[in-house]
């Protein structure tokens, strides 16, 4: 049965819908629904979209703060910030194309609800590290504020952290207050030509441990490298900052990585293009082949990818200094590769999400999750939504 989709026009209307839904119907929250493929089908819930709650509530660049409505497209937010020389440091990816949902349609509410983060994650954090406060409608239909507009705040529980990454399972965010930061003046990259996964990642780890401050560290096997505009398999390091600062730092870093590989410098345009492609995992878009996103300790990334590649024909990519492993099956498998992923995680620990794959096959594949965490998660959902109005994606719904 086709689920209904409702698009309330205001916070008050959302509160009304939720209050009257209690005990009668379930709601799955979305922005523009670009990530609904991620969440899997929800046959027992109607979709409630925040797409009509758009616009800036206030933006004060000197205070490093922005309050915005959830349905505002990320592209609009970043465009506005750019004009004041600022940015969202967590650089949310545009994953729409992974599910054929178009480009630049993701909303800021969706980015935060999925706790998205780009290649700068290991340095600058994810959405949760930049969400200062919010307004929300909980499962009782109550409207509440949480957090604040200031960075230094330990007044009561940090509820914004719970909302980031909650995929709409706790409540509907109707206003988000975000920390914004200066945008780097420019960027360059150092491309180390190497097809040796272990050596390439060792170089990345050494670079990140240096005082020369790279802000991106990814390993691109040949397919991903080509997609990023490079000619061959590459360990890629991004440097951001002022022209002067980069010039000095990139020279120092080049010397530091010499033991591993010959390094070539990418100019601003080449660098920028490459990192957007890495951020958006563009190499894996335009297809419906099974796609996994694994989060492991950085030092474990190479072994995990190698193990999986030995068992299944895959295309892969490593980001976050090796801690983010993208795996895309070249051929279909009934289990989407789940058995192999599960075995790989058993060795390394970490968490895996099937972003795209055979219907009915959904997460979670978390090695460190436990029934105790599932139980606590269930109690927390009850704290916000005792009648279970809000539907959750599979990796949260196990509670």
């Amino acid at each position, binding site marked *: 049965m086709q689920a209904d989709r409702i698009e309330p026009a205001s916070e008050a209307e959302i509160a009304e819908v939720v209050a009257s839904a209690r005990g009668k119907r379930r709601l799955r929250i979305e922005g523009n629904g670009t990530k609904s493929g991620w969440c899997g089908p929800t046959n027992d819930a109607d979709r409630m979209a925040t797409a009509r709650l758009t616009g800036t509530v206030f933006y004060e660049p000197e*205070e490093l703060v922005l309050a915005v409505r959830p349905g505002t497209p990320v592209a609009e937010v970043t465009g506005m910030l750019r004009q004041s020389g600022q940015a969202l440091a967590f650089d949310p990816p545009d994953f729409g194309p992974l599910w054929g949902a178009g480009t630049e349609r993701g909303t800021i509410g969706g980015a935060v609800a999925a706790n998205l983060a780009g290649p700068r994650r*290991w340095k600058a954090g994810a959405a949760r590290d930049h969400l200062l406060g919010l307004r929300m409608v909980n499962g009782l239909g109550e409207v509440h504020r949480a957090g604040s507009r200031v960075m*230094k705040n*330990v007044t009561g529980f940090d509820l914004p952290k719970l909302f980031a990454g909650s995929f709409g399972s706790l409540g509907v965010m109707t206003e988000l207050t975000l920390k914004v930061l200066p945008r780097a003046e420019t960027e360059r990259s150092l491309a180390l030509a190497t097809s040796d996964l272990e050596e390439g990642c060792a170089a990345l780890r050494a670079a990140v441990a240096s005082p020369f401050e790279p802000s991106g560290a990814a390993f691109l096997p040949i397919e991903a490298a080509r997609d990023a505009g490079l000619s061959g398999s590459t360990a890629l390091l991004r440097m951001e900052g002022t022209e002067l600062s980069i010039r000095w730092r990139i020279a120092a870093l080049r010397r530091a990585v010499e033991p591993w590989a010959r390094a070539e410098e990418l100019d601003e345009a080449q660098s920028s293009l490459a990192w957007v492609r890495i951020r958006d995992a563009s190499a894996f878009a335009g297809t419906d082949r099974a796609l996994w996103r694994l989060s492991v300790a950085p*030092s474990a990334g190479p072994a995990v990818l190698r193990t999986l590649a030995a068992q299944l024909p895959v295309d892969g990519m490593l980001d976050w200094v090796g801690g983010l492993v993208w795996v895309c099956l070249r051929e279909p498998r009934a289990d989407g590769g789940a058995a192999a992923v599960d075995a790989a995680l058993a060795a390394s620990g970490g968490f895996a999400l099937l972003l795209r794959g055979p219907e009915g096959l959904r997460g979670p594949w978390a090695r460190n999750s436990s029934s105790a965490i599932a139980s606590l998660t269930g109690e927390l959902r009850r704290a916000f939504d005792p009648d279970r109005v809000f539907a959750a994606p599979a990796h949260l719904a196990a509670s």
Partner: protein
Amino acid sequence: MLTMPDPDRRTLERRSWIVDQLRGIVPPAGVIAEESRRRAYECDALSSYRALPLVVVLPETTEQVAAVLRFCHQENIRVVPRGGGTSLSGGSLPLEDAVLLAMGRFNRILEVDWENRCVVTQPGVTNLGITKAVEHRGFYYAPDPSSQIACSIGGNIAENSGGVHCLKYGLTTNNVLGVEFVLMDGTVLRIGGRHLDAGGLDLLGVITGSEGLLGVITEVTVRILPKPMTARAMLLGFPTVEQGGACVGAIIAAGIIPGGLEMMDQAAIRAAEDFVHAGYPTECGSLLICELDGPEAEVDELLARVETIARAEGATVCRVSTSEEERLRFWAGRKAAFPAVGAIAADYLCMDGTIPRKALPRVLTAMDALATKHGLRVVNVFHAGDGNLHPLILFDANKGELDAAEAFGADILKLCVEVGGVLTGEHGVGIEKRDLMVEQFTQGELDQQGRVKCAFDPLGLLNPGKVFPTLNRCADYGMLRVSGGKLPFAELPRF
């Protein structure tokens, strides 16, 4: 006037039995029952409030922590966790009927993972102790609260501690990767770890800053950073606070995020200068200490840009440190601000609120009026980068001025909320600001947080009387699991 929960009579009556049972769980040396030895734990750094705990327990292993909590849960005994005891808000103030669970024996660093740039440590290790363990290879742990020599990393997580460098490097919550966490019923959870995305709800995020109300931390994983190649400090003096504040805004608007950016008002400058003779310009209305760190070439560039900005904003003093010794001397006055005030007053209260930076001039003006109203002096230091304000209220307890000082403090915090800020930036609510929570939150919002508390601790045994003015019975929220139609301990009163 501060009310704490009424002691549980049943617990008080069974005290010796409870002590005996605890001696069976934790090695006898780790159970302190004698009154004279319990005194050492009767307060934390908010020393105006003291209470003798029922018994002090110092566990050594996670299993012991779980067993102690399980026992207390079964017997409906309250528990107050304690780290370094440096809380400025009374977060570890004991209760007469509570087990004071002191985590000081959890004092070892377990592993340094250089490849993954993180440290696994027990919660009783000091903040600075983590940096000391990794500095020989050029790393450090970034959040640096001023008490870092004594405060524990477990306590840092409980309070989401900040410090001078948190504008650029984040708070504790941005630097913790994982914890082992024991719930009040003895359940041991392992949350997070060396991988960044754990999936599921951000339990680590809500645990950080939860002030000992949700569980007990028994292990911590934090990220470490490469030490910046160089750090230089600038002293920037302005005729007025307005100009100093405008300079802060201009620096940030120029896209510069300093490693540290502190402000002192004239009273603070003078007190500090009298105390340590750091060479502060005592005629200035405000003084900024701006630290820039990174590779030398970058720092040189930033110093020049900040100087240009400062002069454009009317700086009358502009000094740049030329050596590490001089950089430390620039900081010496700011770091001595609290003892400097201690030297000119019999007593002082250190307040902690955060405001939007642009509101500073308005807040300081209003504070002058409040000083007159309460008949007490106030000195201000300000984490200018992030808006966290530390007004130091001078008073003399022997002249009966504590009440006036606390009233002055409460007025300041209400003002912080009024201008769009919050009651506490880094010290925590504890008991000190508990009764002001209604200034910042509606009852519905407090109830929502109360239900989160119920999800972790349905019997409300962990750190009662802290943070929230009243916590309803979890049953009233519909959050208590009822089995066999019976509420557990239904006959017992709850605060």
